[in-house]
């Protein structure tokens, strides 16, 4: 080994051999970084098809009701009757109740995942009582049948598209907060919750009332639920007692 082979970093200039090596290493590491980033980024958890156009506020007119979560039944621009869950902007339910259905106008942004629709209301004052409008009738719940469902417990707001992805173990803390904040709870029954075809019926207790924060401990966990599947307008829910919800892993 001669002087040229011995690197001393405080010298003003590295030897030619070191410069060549360092240049090669820099190029190699740079290419490897770009390649590794692309490879890992392309194979992450699917975000799901949901979307929240947070700054795009629209006015919706319809019947606001508590069934079991706050929801709005309204006619869309094509005249079809739609059901949308109504939530706030953070990880908390709106401080609004509707013990009996009432006609309202809501200025809100849409969180949409396929046909599933949720309206996010930035301020409770955006909900105003309305009169004179032709309102759709309240839906009658239809029992679909008893069922055994297996899936991941999610909060509906994130799963609809507030988070993308809004499921999986890294999302557990967020889901737990949303559930503690009394946002709607759902059960993603697909093996791939990011798929466009995945469905997530709401999960309520055996009487159709929200389970509330007691399910926060199950957030993002794989669970099995034995209950009754019920359809109410656009909303599908599974009614199950807390004892019929079992953690799988």
């Amino acid at each position, binding site marked *: 080994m001669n002087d040229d082979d011995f690197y001393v970093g405080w010298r003003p200039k590295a030897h030619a051999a070191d410069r060549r090596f360092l240049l090669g290493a820099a190029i190699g590491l740079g290419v490897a970084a770009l390649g590794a980033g692309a490879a890992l980024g392309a194979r992450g958890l699917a975000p799901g098809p949901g979307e929240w156009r947070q700054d795009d506020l629209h006015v919706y007119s319809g019947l606001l009701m508590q069934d079991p979560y706050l929801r709005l039944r309204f006619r869309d621009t094509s005249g079809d009757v739609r059901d949308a869950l109504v939530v706030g902007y953070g990880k908390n339910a709106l401080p609004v109740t509707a013990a009996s259905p009432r006609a309202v106008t809501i200025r809100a942004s849409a969180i949409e995942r396929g046909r599933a629709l949720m309206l996010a209301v930035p301020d409770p004052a955006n909900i105003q009582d309305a009169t004179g409008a032709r309102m759709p009738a309240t839906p009658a719940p239809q029992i679909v049948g008893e069922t055994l469902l297996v899936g991941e417990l999610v909060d509906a707001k994130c799963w609809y*598209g507030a988070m993308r992805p809004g499921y*999986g173990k890294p999302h557990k803390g967020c889901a737990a907060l949303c559930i*503690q904040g009394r946002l709607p709870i759902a059960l993603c029954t697909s093996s791939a919750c990011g798929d466009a075809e995945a469905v997530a019926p709401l999960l309520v207790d055996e009487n159709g009332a929200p389970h509330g924060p007691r399910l926060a401990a199950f957030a993002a966990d794989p669970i099995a639920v034995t209950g009754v599947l019920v359809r109410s307008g656009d909303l599908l829910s599974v009614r199950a007692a807390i004892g019929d919800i079992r953690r799988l892993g």
Partner: protein
Amino acid sequence: MSATYKAVQWTPAKIGYDAVTAFGVLGFVASYIAAGISAAPDAHPSEIQLAMRALGAAAFVLFTVILLIGPAARMSRRFLPLLYNRRHLGVTCFAVAATHAALSIVWYHGFAQINPLVSLLTANPRFDSITGFPFEFLGIGALAILFLMAATSHDFWNALLGPRLWKALHMAAYPAYALIVAHGLLGVTQSEPSPLHAAAFGAGAAIVAAAHLAAGLRERARDRIIAATTADGWLHVGAPELIPDKRARIVDTGAGARIAVFREGARITAISNRCRHQGGPLGEGRIIDGCVTCPWHGFQYRPEDGVSPPPYRERVATYPTKIVGGEVFVHPHPAPLGAVTAPSITGRS
């Protein structure tokens, strides 16, 4: 080497090193996010969530590179320039990991009525489960160690704590890496449909372990001798010709100490093999401008008294040498720190 302390003593090499590091990290993160968006053309992935994942992956990859530089430099001197400013990588790794943590805490644990840190610590109490384990705690542990190492990476702390304590503190890099691997395996990979992320964590850990094992085995087999001891306690080094000019032969005393016996022309001197800075192997360095120069960070010591040239003040032990019958001997007991030990002169120049 520092006579006075500056935040960073910039040199062209350090600027280039940091520029490549910045390009590598930003390139990794950007390609990760771009690929994540491209992979879901019909969806609207959250750029923030992609960024937090990309930053976490970048911290892991960077940490893996950091831990590979040590054994790589032991295997080939070509990698020593990467070792020289490795602490810059460490500080960058902490910054990337901290950004990942901050984004994750704000995004997943913010926007609620509970304090985000309280939520972080209480959201998942499943310590009794492997698959459900609160992996966030593993990340917190790793981040705390990374902070400790980044905060004490400056030579000021090395001088204040002493090289042994400083080195012991920075050996916590290995538990931190293990925590990051576990954080990834029990966290993000639990939900991934693709095995690529889990494979990356496993492969990174396996490569780091294999590289250290290979370097350790090579170290044992290198030109290092446990010297024969004469009746009066001197250690036999060998003929002067066995020591390349301006370089050293490392002698193991058999009692845990190593002595670097240098030859510069006809002058034979011996100093501790352990650099005062970070414990670098002085015997693998060379004599430059009359000073033994450490191969790791270029710290220098005069061979006759083990003291760094002015204005620097670092000191290492020197050892008496003698030449008897054309053979070099070194005494295993060091001279007092800073004392001049006269070099032995061989019969030729």
